[in-house]
């Protein structure tokens, strides 16, 4: 199984007499995160399906909530990480910030996509409609578009410093804009109040506990995926650099 480990054969690069071999160091960090994620996921599944009581109002489908909410939160966290990494890159000009940014953008896109899908299904069961233009859903959709725009921009501009800079600027503009978008949609919606997607009122302790466990699990998953993509970016950068050195 191809997991990312720290050894990208940079040492071999310097030695002229080296036996080309596969990676020697076991991927400790990756395996650890993967194991923890697995344990967390098992625990979460148990709690979601066997521990938490069925919601009185919404019934069985309400359990989607325990996956949907953490996934959505992590999707937004990923955007925050993307923004911080972007600022870091523009400030320090260190490539590694860019690897972090690209990793978070990729993982974030996946998470927001899943959040939109699960949210839509949950909305269908609760409110009878696949979509509603309330502030939260609309902003999440816009966020999805910004993520996609980022991925497209980076893809079209390739693996260059110019690409990294442009991506960073996009991320910074995006993160400043998101709260403004949310507020403006809020103002717009107050004119036509409609079904709000969300759970009203205080939540019983079992619900909170399950939600927290699920959140921890998905944070671990996010960290695991980030590590993989970060190493992937690192290796791709290295390969590109070596190609350039040869020519």
């Amino acid at each position: 199984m191809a997991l990312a480990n720290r050894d990208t054969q940079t040492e071999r690069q310097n030695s002229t007499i080296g036996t080309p071999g596969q990676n020697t160091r076991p991927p400790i960090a990756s395996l650890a995160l993967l194991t923890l994620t697995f344990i967390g996921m098992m625990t979460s599944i148990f709690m979601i399906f066997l521990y938490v009581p069925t919601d009185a109002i919404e019934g069985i489908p309400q359990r989607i909530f325990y996956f949907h909410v953490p996934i959505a939160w992590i999707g937004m966290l990923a955007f925050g990480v993307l923004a911080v990494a972007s600022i870091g890159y523009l400030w320090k000009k260190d490539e590694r910030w860019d690897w972090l940014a690209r990793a978070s953008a990729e993982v974030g896109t996946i998470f927001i996509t899943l959040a939109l899908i699960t949210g839509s299904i949950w909305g269908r069961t609760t409110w009878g409609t696949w979509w509603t233009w309330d502030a939260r859903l609309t902003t999440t959709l816009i966020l999805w578009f910004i993520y996609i725009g980022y991925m497209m921009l980076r893809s079209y501009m390739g693996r260059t410093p110019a690409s990294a800079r442009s991506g960073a600027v996009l991320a910074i503009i995006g993160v400043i804009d998101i709260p403004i978008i949310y507020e403006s949609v809020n103002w717009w919606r107050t004119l036509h109040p409609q079904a709000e997607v969300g759970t009203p009122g205080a939540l019983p302790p079992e619900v909170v506990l399950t939600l927290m466990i699920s959140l921890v699990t998905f944070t671990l998953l996010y960290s695991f995926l980030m590590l993989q993509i970060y190493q992937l970016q690192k290796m791709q950068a290295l390969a590109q650099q070596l190609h350039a050195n040869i020519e």
Partner: protein
Amino acid sequence: MQGFIYLVSAYAIVWVGLFAYLAVIMMRIRGVRTELAAVQELVREQQEKPTTS
């Protein structure tokens, strides 16, 4: 019953999605490793040849 179907499909989509993504990541890592090995071969070959400029 219908609610149950929605629940299952939501979880199924998440699982399938995450696993598919994980599989894609693994493939990409393997691909880069192969590419890196190949490039490193080329680098060594170039180093072993007497330098001509």
